[in-house]
């Protein structure tokens, strides 16, 4: 079996993985960056909206432009990039199984950074398995990356930022958004995104849910019902819309398979999307030498994923002796300050609290480890 070795292996070349690889490589480490897709960038290239936050977080720059810049920097850095390559398993000794160029290889690295991202949630209702029901992110990939409209008339379920942004991008791509359906009594995402849809005449059904979807070989009609204050459908309130597509924007959950397999400890934190690996302020997990970054550590967004990637890259390079303690401390303090600014405000504060819970759980895990020793 062919062996591929590196000082640092980064699994996943989305925003977090690209930044991790870049930081570690710029510090001088020998880095290999691996992604199962044919193209790097993860989900950055379907983000055609301008990013939020302040200038330091690239606010006002569109996601795909950030992605192109990052790719160029990574390829200039001299990091090795393996695409169409799958890390399918990890052993207790941290050796990894890697399928690349049709060959089964052994991947050995002193430090591992897992940045495997997240996947979309599903919500069941009668007819929810019909062709035409898809994740909002899936529709976004189709219109913005593949330039294909999955349907002509869309019902969006969920009014968080993903639901609002993808609805607007569906309009930009030429689809009709016939409804945004939201179970809660108020819109979940930013007012600025909702305003764009309202001005375009998209109807919002707040306090409503999809009760069923009809069609033989795909969605044709969507039945919507009002919810009472206990979130139960009100009998007799149902009405039907003609639509061929239903997009589900009901959250994401971290893709943690490799991290579980490595034996890392987890905590269940709903605000971060479910089970998330414990990590410290260096992004290191309970398995020494194994770091995590981005949505796999808890679902946030691309800007914080990039900062977490940088943090993991700096910490792994420091652990290998490429950065002295003082230089590393300075870099990490800058990154952490930017992360804290991202995790502030109405929406960010909840995430910051959730991340503090996760860090505290990590600390307890480390302490109990000491007691055992």
């Amino acid at each position: 079996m062919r062996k591929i070795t590196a000082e640092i292996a980064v699994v996943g070349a989305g925003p977090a993985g690209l930044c991790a690889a870049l930081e570690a490589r710029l510090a001088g480490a020998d880095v290999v960056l691996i992604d199962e897709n044919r193209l790097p960038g993860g989900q950055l290239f379907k983000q055609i909206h301008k990013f939020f936050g302040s200038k330091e977080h690239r606010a006002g720059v569109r996601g795909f432009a950030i992605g192109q810049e990052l790719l160029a920097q990574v390829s200039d850095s001299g990091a090795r990039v393996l695409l169409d390559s799958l890390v399918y398993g990890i052993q207790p000794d941290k050796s990894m199984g890697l399928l690349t160029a049709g060959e089964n290889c052994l991947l050995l690295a002193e430090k591992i950074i897992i940045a495997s991202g997240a996947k979309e949630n599903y919500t069941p209702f009668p007819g929810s398995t019909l062709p035409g029901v898809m994740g909002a992110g899936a529709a976004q990939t189709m219109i913005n990356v593949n330039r294909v409209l999955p349907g002509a008339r869309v019902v969006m379920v969920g009014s968080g930022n993903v639901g609002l942004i993808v609805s607007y991008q569906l309009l930009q791509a030429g689809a009709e958004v016939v409804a945004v359906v939201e179970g809660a009594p108020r819109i979940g995402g930013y007012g600025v995104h909702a305003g764009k849809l309202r001005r375009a005449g998209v109807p919002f059904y707040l306090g409503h849910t999809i009760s069923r979807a009809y069609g033989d070989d795909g969605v044709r009609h969507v039945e919507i019902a009002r919810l009472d204050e206990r979130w139960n459908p009100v009998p007799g309130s149902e009405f039907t819309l003609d639509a061929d597509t239903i997009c589900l924007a009901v959250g994401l959950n971290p893709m943690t398979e490799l991290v579980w397999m490595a034996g890392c400890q987890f905590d269940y934190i709903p605000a971060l999307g479910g089970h998330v690996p414990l990590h410290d302020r260096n992004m290191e997990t309970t398995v020494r030498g194994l770091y995590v970054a981005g949505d796999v550590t808890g679902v946030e967004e691309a800007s914080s994923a990039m900062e977490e990637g940088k943090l993991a890259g700096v910490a792994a390079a420091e652990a290998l002796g490429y950065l002295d303690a003082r230089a590393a401390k300075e870099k990490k303090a800058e990154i952490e300050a930017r992360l804290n600014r991202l995790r502030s405000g109405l929406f960010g504060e909840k995430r910051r609290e959730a991340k503090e819970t996760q860090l505290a759980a990590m600390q307890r895990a480390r302490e109990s480890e000491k007691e055992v020793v």
Partner: protein
Amino acid sequence: MRVLHHPVLGDLTGQKTVTIYYGEEPVEAFEGEPVAAALLNAGIRVFRKTAKRREPRSVFCAIGRCTDCMMIVDGIPNTRTCVTAVRDGMRVQLQDGLAPVGIAPEAGGR
């Protein structure tokens, strides 16, 4: 349906096309795009049928995770069409239930 014009991404021009086959039906595709995108563009929505109840299934996640879009591609069953790029002359078949054992890959000539 193609998104030919776009206020942010601009117009789509000069794409190289290839032909794939859905059963016997030729389907035009853009070079390098996923099979699933080419089929959805052609208005084809049923990618497979479930083993027990023969219910239709199609693309759900479009990032290779959910496996709902699996089809028989060049004779190879259980191929995730959302992460498999088209190739000129590629044969794509609806996967009806569990694919027969032993169909891959000699049957498809890959």
